[in-house]
């Protein structure tokens, strides 16, 4: 084979592999989209998964899923938990990172070690006893339970902030201190504004994790009225049983906001995850 032919074969194989992979990703999602647009009669009549719906604009299933699935309530609950825990994580993480990087104090090594070790313990292993703690604090079945857990167990955020604070020259702090600024003023007026890129990373990583989390709301907020996006969708399993047209509509309803945010913030999401995981 000449090199030109070989290059062409290689290129064909490359595109073929990319197309196959894309199909593998898109097919399961596409089929659910098709199903969500079909009527229950169509499904009962044995419409195959790959058959297009009779009416491409049949949105009745979405209305049912949205209303009976209490999705408005779920979206509100998720939003509240998301905003409070992200804001809290930013302040708590940056404050801890500021204290660790800019001060010398007794027991510092021990404290850094405590934060470090906690990252090695998968939170899922301690869930049985974490449950007792939440219960004893009286937080069970309140929105505060997931908020407290998202705030208390996010150690990765501290590391992300630590990386960035380290790159802020200490002379900036010293100059401000000579001008009479207190440590709190330095943190609030100098460090926080300079941490903007790190905050973006934390907001993205945390936002994805909280929006998609199933485990914590499922275990700590079983109350019907406290459903989040994940747990409300999970409850579709009961009342809708085998009504795949409704379940599909519910799943698509949950996926669409993610897709919209992804398309809008693509670049930031990639950067955020790379920095969050690899640094």
């Amino acid at each position, binding site marked *: 084979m000449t090199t030109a032919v070989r290059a062409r074969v290689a290129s064909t194989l*490359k*595109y073929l592999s*990319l197309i196959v*992979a*894309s199909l593998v*990703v898109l*097919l*399961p999602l596409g*089929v*659910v989209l098709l*199903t969500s647009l079909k009527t229950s009669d169509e499904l009962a009549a044995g419409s195959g*998964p*790959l058959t297009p719906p009779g009416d491409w604009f049949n949105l009745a299933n979405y209305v049912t899923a949205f209303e009976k699935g209490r999705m408005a309530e779920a979206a509100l609950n998720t939003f509240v938990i998301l905003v409070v825990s992200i804001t809290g994580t930013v302040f*708590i993480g940056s*404050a*801890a990172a500021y*204290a*660790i*990087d*800019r001060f*010398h*104090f007794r027991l510092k090594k021990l404290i850094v070690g405590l934060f*470090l070790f906690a990252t*090695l*313990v*998968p939170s*899922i*292993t301690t*869930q*049985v*006893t*974490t449950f*007792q*703690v939440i219960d004893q604090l009286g937080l069970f079945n309140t929105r505060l339970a997931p908020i*407290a*857990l998202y*705030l*208390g*167990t996010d150690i990765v955020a*501290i*590391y992300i902030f630590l990386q960035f604070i*380290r790159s802020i020259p*200490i002379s900036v702090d010293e100059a401000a*201190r000579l001008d009479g600024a207190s*440590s709190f003023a330095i943190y609030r007026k100098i460090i926080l504004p300079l941490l903007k890129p790190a905050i973006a990373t934390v907001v993205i990583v945390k936002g994805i994790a909280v929006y*998609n989390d*199933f*485990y914590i709301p499922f275990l700590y907020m079983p109350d019907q009225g406290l459903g989040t996006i*994940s747990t409300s*969708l999970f409850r579709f399993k009961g009342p809708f049983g085998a009504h*795949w047209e409704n*379940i599909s509509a519910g*799943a698509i309803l949950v*996926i669409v906001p993610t897709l919209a945010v992804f398309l809008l913030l*693509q670049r930031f999401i990639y950067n955020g*995850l*790379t920095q969050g*995981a*690899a*640094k």
Partner: protein
Amino acid sequence: MTPISSSLRRGPAGGTRLQDAARHSRQRPRRRWRQGLTPWLFLLVPLALLITFSYVPIINMIVYSFTDWDGVSPDYTFTGLENYVEIFTRPELFRVFVASAYYLGAAVLQIVLALYFATVLSFNTRFRNLFKGILFFPYLINGVAIGFVFLYFFQEGGTFDTVLRLFGVGGEHLWLGDPDLVNYSLAGVSVWRYMGLNFVLFLGAIQSIAPELYEAAELDGANRWQQFRFIIVPSLRPLIGLTAILAISGCLSVFEIPYIMTGGAGASETFVIQTIKLAFRFDKTGLASAAAVVLLVIILLVTWLQRRIVPEERVTS
């Protein structure tokens, strides 16, 4: 978390100078005492949360693992190592690790695929961003939604069977009901879900390799495979090590997808599902805690081994 820990241990560059400055200015004792207090004010909330939600549960877990507590009644008795003996002598409690093996296989496949696609897409390819977006997107999707999507996908005579028939592979399979098949199906879902994340991390690392390296290699007559083998793989080694360790602890703590899709029934039961069932359905908090301690020890051991085997190295490029 390997790279993080190393940079932490290196210690901060700043701090000292500030403190020295404070010492030189010979402040009055009260002022100095207040300065010593400042870092603790910043650490108050983070530390309180860390202790309440990480360390109290860990310590309680270890204590409960030596008791027969049911999680409800006010009292319990210490039973020594009984729970641990039970875990290691009841084979059905160990059976759950069989499921982990499938996910470990899936993780290997996932890393290989991610490496391949990251390499392919870091060189000139048409529709690069489109392919990148498609391959990555599943990682962002809600786990419950993914569970439902694949419950439908794997139905008898459903999408998967229909597609297989298009390729001439006939028959209807109980992809989620057959104990021989269920873990392949579920592990497949985990590849579908997480491959994109690994791929994006690898892509980021490959793109931070200096382009001169490839140019120099090309001048020396290296082909694409040699470039991959001698430039890309070495510079990704720390990240591959990190991914491997996350994969191992990940495949031991699989919960969401099997719980949503099969309820963790039969062969698809994983370690975490079993522990949760022991604790919350069968009220065996003591036994569940011992199981969790065993899992924790395994994960710490793996992390330690990984650090020994793949020493941290800064890649000079």
